[in-house]
């Protein structure tokens, strides 16, 4: 009997936790969508497809999904030089957009979970803070 109660409590706690995470992610993505449509959309396009050979895609991008820290670093400090995305080499400049760490976490959560992308782990402000230039 005692076991059942513990398990139920654990289960409820777990579900609650999951629910809280889900809402936090949703809220972060919503803020991130605003940032995206302000700072990123002109080059990476409304559905993240980018511009062929010029600006790399974010939707179904192997680079974005596998190089999470490098992607955060690119958004935070800017990106220059060659970059291989889905087998295609891009060579362009993305200036640092001057976003705050919280805004970077939000826009990362948006692009990591939109247009068919999905990430298990939410990007937090602490994670962005920890990314340094070198």
């Amino acid at each position, binding site marked *: 009997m005692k076991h059942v109660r513990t398990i139920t409590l654990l289960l409820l706690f777990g579900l609650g936790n999951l629910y809280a995470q889900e809402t936090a992610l949703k809220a972060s993505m919503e803020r991130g969508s605003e940032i995206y*449509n*302000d*700072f990123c*959309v*002109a*080059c990476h*396009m*409304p559905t993240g497809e980018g*511009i062929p050979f*010029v600006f790399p895609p974010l939707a179904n991008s192997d680079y974005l999904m596998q190089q999470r820290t490098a992607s955060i670093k690119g958004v935070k400090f800017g990106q*220059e030089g060659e970059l291989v995305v889905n087998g295609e080499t891009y*060579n*362009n*400049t993305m*200036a*640092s*957009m*001057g*976003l705050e760490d919280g805004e970077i976490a939000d826009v990362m959560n948006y692009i990591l979970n939109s247009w068919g992308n999905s990430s298990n782990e939410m990007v937090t402000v602490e994670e962005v803070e920890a990314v340094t230039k070198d």
Partner: protein
Amino acid sequence: MKNSITYLYLFVITLNFSCAQDTENKANTAKDIPFSEELFIDGLQIPWGMAFLPDGSMLITEKSGTLIHFKDGKKTLVDNVPEVYVRGQGGLMDIFLHPDYENNGWLYMTYASKEGSEKGGHTALMRAKLKNNALYDNELLYKAGPNTTKGQHFGSRIAFDDEGYLYFSIGERGARDVNPQDITKDGGKIYRLNDNGSIPGDNPFVDAENAKTAIYSYGHRNPQGLIKHPVTGAIWEHEHGPRGGDEINIIKKGANYGWPVITYGINYSGTPITDKTEMEGMEQPNHYWVPSIAPSGMAFVTSDKYKNWKGSLLVGSLVFQYLERLTLEGTKVIHREKLLENKGRVRDVRQGPDGLIYVAVEGKGIYRLNPKQ
């Protein structure tokens, strides 16, 4: 719902059709290229603007906030540059010398500035003099407000006309339904000032209630090209449209250029902004680009250095990464040609005092077009 999709589809088809009719609206790959390009200054990130000093040296603004003095093949950072709000499209932007620079030493710069009490920034215009690689006598001439944390549409190019008036542009700062059509608000405007920053008594809105009296024309989106026509003396402007609908306009006193009430463009998402491309009381563009080339920088060719180029207009394309040459017949664009393809985003283009063309490319530097004999 189904109906609206059909309408949207028809709208897009009509849009395509109307562009297809427009033979001038196609950029051709250049055949006779009268130059070979040389990377004249390398190692630049986002060279936004450039100016040529009488001693043959150059000043280059980097969007990140540094001003570079290039002399005898060497780059030196200029001191005492104003603090710049680097966010989104904003940073240190244009630089332009007073027409009488040799005698008065004034240089003008536009930049995104945090000045003011609200969070964020907005476009500012300042002037200063240069000595020993430092600015001095810095004067803030105009600061748009209120600040906003939006990253878009700061403008901002500078030009002088033959009478010595200074013009500069400010984009609508991502508030298209608030700023461009309202002359009591900054943003989405071409401004006109005296060279000391005071407002000319005959500016069009000096008597309008609560108006920003520096405004010369309005209804603009994001102008990043501004230049005096070498023959007529008129001020020519180009601006970024939304998706489609970049424009070249000839600026008229007090005129409304229509954004966002009329436009040849649509939202980035593909949805329409308006079904109107014209309306009474609003100016038609002199030329419009569909699809958008994302124009930045503007130069008229007045020298004889390049065969058949005299009188052409040069414009940088950020999105397609080339330099566009537009052949004009009077004010009408009759031919478009792509140059310097695949070098990178072309941010600025100028004709130097030596008659040669200099092109600023992001991630590269300044190219000089050396004429072929």
